[in-house]
């Protein structure tokens, strides 16, 4: 018996043949005892399999919410607090970052002033030191009065005011530069880009939103149980 006949017999057993194919096979079965014997064997095998006792499930396979990773239904306001908490935390961290970056980058703008830490103070000092150098250039003219003063040693009365004038002229330009540098430094140290008050507000908002989120989750979970 070939594979084709085997498939025909198996399908015939399950009523899967067309009426014409069934009729053809039935006439062959009448004439061919071996074919009929194979059909009987296949039928007996199928009956044995069908009579195999169905086992009861050893336990219930019902699912729990934990098994399928289902979360309790949360209040409608929950996404708002989640967003608020995330935003406040982001801004809080960003404000810290902004203040730190502004201090760190102060030397880059140092000639113009800015920053309040050691490096920025150094830049202010540099500014203050350079300022007199620039300022002393015009007072090159001051040397003129100074030289005669040396040359006219016998007339000290005249050199004293001249030296005072010269000194005054040398010192005078340095005063605004130093003051300006100090003022800028002072201002930068005292006034960060984002004020402490705002940082506290942002931190409090982040903490409060997170706390409310946790509270909502807790209540939802306890109600769900």
């Amino acid at each position, binding site marked *: *018996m*070939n*594979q084709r*006949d*085997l*498939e025909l*017999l*198996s*399908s015939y057993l*399950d009523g*899967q043949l067309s009426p014409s194919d069934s009729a053809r096979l039935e006439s062959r079965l009448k004439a061919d005892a*071996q074919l009929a*014997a*194979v059909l*009987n*064997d*296949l039928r*007996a*095998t*199928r*009956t*044995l*399999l*069908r009579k*195999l*006792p*169905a*086992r*009861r*499930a*050893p*336990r*219930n*396979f*019902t*699912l729990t*919410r934990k*098994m*399928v990773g*289902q979360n309790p239904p949360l209040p409608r306001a929950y996404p708002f607090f989640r967003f608020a908490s995330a935003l406040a935390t982001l801004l809080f961290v960003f404000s810290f970052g902004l203040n730190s970056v502004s201090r760190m980058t102060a030397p880059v703008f140092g000639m113009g002033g800015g920053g309040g830490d050691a490096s920025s103070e150094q830049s202010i000092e540099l500014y203050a030191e350079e300022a007199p150098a620039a300022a002393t250039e015009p007072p090159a003219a001051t040397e003129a009065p100074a030289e005669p003063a040396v040359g006219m040693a016998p007339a000290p009365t005249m050199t004293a005011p001249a030296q005072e004038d010269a000194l005054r002229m040398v010192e005078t330009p340095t005063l605004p530069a130093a003051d300006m540098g100090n003022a800028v430094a002072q201002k930068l140290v005292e006034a960060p880009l984002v004020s402490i008050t705002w940082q506290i507000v942002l931190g409090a908002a982040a903490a409060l939103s997170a706390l409310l989120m946790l509270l909502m989750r807790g209540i939802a979970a306890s109600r769900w149980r």
Partner: protein
Amino acid sequence: MNEQALITDAQNGSLDAFNTLVLHYQDSVFNTALRILGDGDMAADATQDAFISAFKSIATFRGGSFKAWLMRTVTNACYDELRRQKRRPTTPLEPDTDDGEEMDSPRWLADPNMTPDQKAEADEVEHAIQHCLDNLPLEFKTVVVMADIQGMDYSEVAMSIRVPLGTIKSRLARARLRLRECLQGFEELLPASYRLEEGMNVS
């Protein structure tokens, strides 16, 4: 039980609706897994995995036979279980109760309607059939379990394992032939009416 309503509710996320379906189908699903895997503990694991997987993907069910769809899930879970078993052969444990204690007398062993002799005989026949099933190639075994043990029709089996109808017919015929040959070795265990004739070859 309004199956369609339960399926719709489950698709909308209702775990209670899905669990009603679980209670209805768990014996069929477990039996399919048991006959494919030949081991109660592995079958229980595969059944649980199949239901979890079915719940997670129930949105993809687009109608037709829910049983066939579920059988595809359990067949996949059985294949996964066999692959896992090949990678890490382990000693199976007794199933746990809800309290986490080992269940020393599983319910599936108990059948109060049979005398001890009948039970011993039935167990022997069942053992012989399971032995022959275990010796079948996996693709033949899956088809014969679905068609002859679960009583599914050809189109349902074809839908479950996603192969053409012609392949189902061919696999089923060859699986039945192999089973017949194997069961001839257990002739003395079989009831007289089911004894098989010998000496027939299929080329």
